[in-house]
C-alpha cells in the first residue's frame, strides 16, 4: 500500500512540475553519454561527462586558454554594444521618416537575408586575425535584427495614440520622446535578444575560423590531437557563457516589456 502511494506521489510530483521531468530527462541523457563514452566508444572520439567535468581545471590551466576565453568575452561585449548603437541609430533613422523607410527598407531586408558567412574570409583579410575582425563580424550579425525590430516598433503605433497626443498639444519632439520612444522599447528589447543571438553566432564563427589564434587555435589543436576531453571542456565553457549572456538579455526583455501584457 505504501509503495503505491509512494509511486503515486512521485507521479503526481512529476505531473505537476514538468521542470522535474525535464531535469530527469537531462540526467538520463547524461547517464547514456557517460555509459557510451566509458564502455562503447573509443576514448579518442568521445569523453564521458565525468571526465570532462574533472578535467575542466586542466583545460583552464592550459596555457593561453583563459586568455582566449577572456578575449572572446570581450569581443562579445563590444560587438553587442556596437550592434545596439548601430541598430538603434539606423533603425530610428529609417523608421521615423516614411520616405527614408520606403527607400531603404528593401536594402536592409536584402542585406539581412544574405548569407554573411560567405564573406567571413574577407573580414579576416581586412581586419586581421585579432579581435577587430571578430567584433566586426559579430556586429554585422547582431545589428540587423535590432534595426528591423526598432523599425517595427516605431511603425506599429496605433494612429489613435498619435492623434490623442496631438490633440493634447504635443509638439514633434514631445511625441518622439513620450509616445514613439516608450512604444518602441519592448520591440527594442526583443530585438536585442535576437541581436545577442546574432552577435554570439558572428563572433564564435569568426573565432572558430581563425585557427592560428584565439579559441579557434585551441579547438584545432584539441581536435587534431584527438583530445575530446579538453575539447568538450572548452566547448562547455563557451556554451555556458552563451547561455548566461542570452539569459541576461532575455530577463531584460521580460522586465522592460511589461506593459505589453495586453
Amino acid at each position, binding site marked *: 500500500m505504501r509503495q503505491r502511494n509512494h509511486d503515486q506521489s512521485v507521479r503526481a510530483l512529476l505531473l505537476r512540475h514538468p521542470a522535474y521531468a525535464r531535469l530527469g530527462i537531462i540526467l538520463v541523457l547524461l547517464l547514456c553519454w557517460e555509459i557510451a563514452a566509458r564502455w562503447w566508444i573509443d576514448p579518442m572520439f568521445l569523453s564521458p561527462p565525468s571526465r570532462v567535468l574533472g578535467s575542466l581545471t586542466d583545460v583552464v590551466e592550459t596555457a593561453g586558454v583563459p586568455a582566449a576565453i577572456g578575449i572572446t568575452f570581450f569581443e562579445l561585449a563590444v560587438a553587442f554594444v556596437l550592434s545596439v548603437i548601430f541598430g538603434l541609430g539606423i533603425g530610428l533613422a529609417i523608421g521615423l521618416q516614411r520616405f527614408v523607410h520606403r527607400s531603404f527598407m528593401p536594402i536592409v531586408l536584402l542585406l539581412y537575408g544574405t548569407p554573411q558567412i560567405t564573406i567571413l574570409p574577407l573580414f579576416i583579410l581586412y581586419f586581421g586575425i585579432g579581435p577587430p575582425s571578430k567584433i566586426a563580424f559579430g556586429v554585422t550579425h547582431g545589428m540587423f535584427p535590432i534595426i528591423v525590430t526598432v523599425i517595427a516598433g516605431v511603425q506599429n503605433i496605433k494612429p489613435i*495614440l498619435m492623434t*490623442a497626443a496631438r490633440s493634447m*498639444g504635443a509638439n514633434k519632439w*514631445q511625441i518622439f520622446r513620450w509616445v514613439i520612444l516608450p512604444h518602441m522599447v519592448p520591440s527594442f528589447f526583443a530585438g536585442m535578444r535576437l541581436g545577442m543571438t546574432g552577435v554570439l553566432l558572428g563572433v564564435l564563427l569568426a573565432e572558430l575560423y581563425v585557427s592560428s589564434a584565439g579559441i579557434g587555435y585551441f579547438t584545432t589543436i584539441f581536435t587534431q590531437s584527438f583530445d575530446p576531453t579538453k575539447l568538450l571542456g572548452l566547448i562547455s565553457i563557451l556554451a555556458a557563457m552563451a547561455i548566461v549572456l542570452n539569459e541576461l538579455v532575455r530577463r531584460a526583455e521580460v522586465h522592460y516589456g511589461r506593459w505589453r*501584457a495586453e
Partner: protein
Amino acid sequence: MATDAVAISIRAVSHAFGEPGGPRYVRALLDTSLDIARGELLCLIGPSGCGKSTLLNIIGGLLPPATGTVQIGQTPVRGPLPREVSFVFQENALFPWCTVAENVTLGMVFQGVPKAEHAMRARKSLEAVGLAEFAQHYPSELSGGMRQRAALARALSLETGILLMDEPFGALDEQTRMILGEDLSVLLARTEKTIVFVTHSLGEAVFLADRVAVFSARPGTIKKMIAINEPHPRKPEFVTSDKFHSLRNELYTLLHDEIRKAVSQSAIAGTEAKA
C-alpha cells in the same frame, strides 16, 4: 444668443473625403451651421456615415473643413487648441506603457501645465471619475469602463472650457454604459464645461443632453434640433418618466428612416461608412 454666451460657432461647414469624381469620393458633411452655448451639453446623433464624428474632429481642430469656419469664442479654429479643447475618443487612446496616473500627467506635460500643479490636478480628476485607487495600474489591467474613466480623467485634468467626446461608451456593454452615463451626468453637472457628445444611442442622448442635434444620412446635415428641458444632474428616475419616453420616441421617428437609408447606402457603395 448673445455673442459671449456662444462657446462654439459653426458656420457653413462641409467636408468630403477622397478626390472629387474619384471612386472613393464621399461627401461626409453638408453645409452645417450651429451655435453651441457656453455650458451646454450638446449631443450629435445620427446614422453611421452621417458626419457627426467628422464634425467633432473639425470643431476640435483635428481636421480642416472643406468649406466653412468654426470659431471657439472669438478665435477661428485652425488646428488643435489643447488649451481650449480636450478629447475623449471611442478607441482606447490611453498610452499602454504608462500607468493611469502617468497617462493623466503626460496630458498635462503636452498641454504645458506647470509641473507644480501636476500632482494635485491628477489627484482631483482621478477622484472625480472614481479611479483614485487605480492610479498606479496599467490600462491592460483595467476593464473597458475603467479605461474610459481614465481617459475622461486625463481630459478633465487639462481643465479646458470645451470637452469633445466621440462615442466614448461605444465599445462598452449596456450595463457599463448605464452606470457610466449616470456618473457622467453627476460629474458634468458640477463643471461648467461646454460638451459636445457624439453617440449612437438614443437613450444616452436623451439622458445626458441639453439639446440633441439629429443628423440625416450621408451627406449629413442637421435635420432637427431637439431641446431636452430637464435640470442636471439627471436622476435615474428620469429614464422611466413619460417625458423621457416621448423624447426618445421623437428621436426614433426622426432617425429610423435615416438609418435605413444609411444602411442601404453602405450596401450599395460597398465602402466603409465613415461616421
